[in-house]
């Protein structure tokens, strides 16, 4: 099996799973319990938080554990809107955000907020100028993702941060879900960023756990109220095994991060070099420093993305139509649509998403198998 769908999810690392199990067995107390079992679990929780904070480069009270990327995005968007409703009801998001951001914004729109959806260039980038132009006196939030999940474009977070230096009260949120393990930390988390969302299963951690970075002193309304966990900002008994496992997964993902990213880039290079030789192929994720090393989005003219996915699946190669989250709905990619890619081409797009664990041999095998699929479709197209 060749797994090229790592932006959809990654396989849990065996040692991370081991951590999950050990913590489930040996630290299973409720961290809020006063007795020794609770204290032991609390120490685990705090140490996991400390480790995450050290890797992110912040204080441990700036890390809040969540159930994953979707919750993190929902929390920051809606939590900001509610917390700052007296100061303004205008938010700015890019039009290529993950649905967790877009649909949170849409929900706010229904409730009376104004939302600006920033357009992107044909190549798939938000421009800092468009951010500057969209800012109004009542703007309370700018949310732009670090790495686009469909085509891998790295958004100009540093430049947007520079613009927002002049608007210190606007919350700046970065959905960083796709950026972990790609050696992009300084790029996606400059000082001006107030909030960032992360999800464990994108870096070989377990499902159902993630975290947000929330800068000290920034106001964010609580969405999940209850027993007061996570400094009273996100209630619910802490998922200690998953949190510890995520902390470990994050440590592993950020160890030798640059080498891993370089390895993925070399694989991507090989794939791009190969695909470029085929006339009916359009590549949306070129090889340059503005694109993440692990995502390669391309389309075969006239062949629906779904068809390509299934044809390669028959060869035991797993990739996906642009974003796994929305691929079942059959819509064309929202990122490609925002890039004004013609609908017919957009519905043909598929995404390869690589990981450090992918090998040269796997890429070679893909290169060997792919022409068969490609030629078969060419026959179909001619008829």
């Amino acid at each position, binding site marked *: 099996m060749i797994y090229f769908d790592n932006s959809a999810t990654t396989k849990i690392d065996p040692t991370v799973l*081991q*951590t999950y199990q*050990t*913590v489930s067995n*040996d*630290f299973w107390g409720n961290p809020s319990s*006063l007795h*020794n079992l609770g*204290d*032991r679990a609390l*120490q*685990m929780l705090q*140490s*996991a938080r400390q*480790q995450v904070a050290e890797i992110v480069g912040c204080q441990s009270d700036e890390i809040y554990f969540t159930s994953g990327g979707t919750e993190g995005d929902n929390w920051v968007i809606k939590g900001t809107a509610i917390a700052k409703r007296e100061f303004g009801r205008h938010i700015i998001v890019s039009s290529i955000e993950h649905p967790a951001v877009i649909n949170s914004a849409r929900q706010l729109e229904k409730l009376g907020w104004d939302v600006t959806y920033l357009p992107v260039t044909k190549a798939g980038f938000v421009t800092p100028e468009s951010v500057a132009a969209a800012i109004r006196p009542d703007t309370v939030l700018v949310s732009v993702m670090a790495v686009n999940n469909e085509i891998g474009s790295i958004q100009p977070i540093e430049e947007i941060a520079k613009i927002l230096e002049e608007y210190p009260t606007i919350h700046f949120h970065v959905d960083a879900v796709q950026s972990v393990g790609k050696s992009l930390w300084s790029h996606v988390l400059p000082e001006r960023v107030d909030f960032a969302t992360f999800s464990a299963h994108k870096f070989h951690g377990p499902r159902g756990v993630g975290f947000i970075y929330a800068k000290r002193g920034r106001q964010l309304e609580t969405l999940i109220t209850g027993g007061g966990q996570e400094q009273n900002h996100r209630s619910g008994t802490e998922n200690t095994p998953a949190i*510890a496992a995520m*902390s*470990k997964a994050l*440590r592993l993902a950020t160890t030798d991060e640059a080498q891993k990213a370089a390895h993925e880039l070399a694989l991507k290079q090989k794939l791009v070099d190969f695909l470029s030789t085929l006339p009916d192929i359009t590549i949306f994720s070129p090889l340059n420093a503005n694109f993440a090393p692990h995502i390669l989005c391309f389309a075969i003219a006239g062949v629906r993305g779904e068809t390509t996915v299934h044809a390669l699946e028959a060869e035991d190669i797993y990739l996906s139509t642009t974003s796994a989250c929305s691929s079942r709905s059959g819509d064309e990619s929202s990122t490609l649509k925002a890039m004004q890619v013609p609908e017919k081409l957009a519905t043909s797009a598929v995404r390869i998403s690589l990981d450090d664990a992918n090998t040269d041999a796997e890429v070679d095998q893909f290169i060997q198998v792919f022409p068969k699929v490609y030629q078969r479709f060419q026959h179909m197209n001619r008829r």
Partner: protein
Amino acid sequence: MKYTEITVRYGELSTKGKNRREFIGRLNGNVTKALAAFPDLHIYPKRDRMHISLNGTDSDAVIAKLSQVFGIQNFSPSIKIEKDIEQMKTTALQMLQEQVPEAKTFKIDTRRSDHDFELDTNQINLLLGDAVYDNIPELTAKMKHPDVTLRVEVRRDAIYLSSRTIKGAGGLPVGTAGKAMLMLSGGIDSPVAGYLAMKRGVEIEMVHFFSPPYTSERALAKAKQLTAKLAPYVGTIKFIEVPFTEIQEEVKRIVPEGYLMTVQRRFMLRLAVKLAEQRKGLAIFNGESVGQVASQTLESMVAINDVTNMPIIRPVATMDKTEIISIAEKIDTFDLSIMPFEDCCTIFAPPRPKTKPNLEKSRFYESMFDGEALMARSLAGVKVTEIHSHDEFLATDQIDIQSVL
């Protein structure tokens, strides 16, 4: 800069006449203990200063430890060189170059005890001053309050150069003022009181009252952890845990609510005094601050102090809470102190304690039960442990935790 020696200047003890020898001996012992982790050092205590040869040990690590030892006014890391004029010149230039651009003015200050050296004090001053003037244009000479003073000492064995003077912890060497008991609750004030006691040379032993199940193991661990925080100033500190449950229950049963606190405190003080007597302590230290809480009004102090003639020293008596907190932060006990565990002072705290308890009434209520027997039982259950600065009591599971993260 790679320093080869550290010269330590004594604090107030230089003025202490006849006891001088004892003070120096004690300081030598404390410094030796504080620097025990560095086996290559040689420590030479002398009459007017202490001399430490680093023998290749990293000077920054030694400096960090040394700055915590009481009884040291200041110290200077220095470089020992041969009695060679060229070498003296290059080393002096290197040392001053390091302080540029922060420093703008300099002075050369030479002492010469070896009168056979070819240059005299003034000649050395001139020679080095000229060299600096020629080679480091950023620095200008200034005799009064220069930014940096380069000290040159020409001795029989070698020349010593130093340009930094680091402030020591001050105070007196711990142990020179005798031994006392510190009543350590776990709050913010008592560790600060302990620190200040040590600063004046007092060797302290911690007396901590604990009342399971009304207080938790965690509260006890916290008190021990606080003790570990204070240990670097002396090496090790004895921690005495005194079981207090039975006394508290009896007091609660018999004494009217308004006097609960006063009578409890009288028992605590009596026990601390008895321990001091057993252990050759000369006084009791505590973290009381006048008027801070009901038990710390002057009236309360009268009613509580009534049980003993032993001196009770309250180092933070006249400090504001903010002043106490700033010391607690400096000595890194604050974050521990504010961890929320019940301690023996907060349990059974009556909602309306008497802020002006009556001495006669306090004595009367106490006459209603057999205090001596209660105290005897408590003292029989006393446990003493010796606590080192590296001991860990709160984060006990860290090895397990780090192995899975």
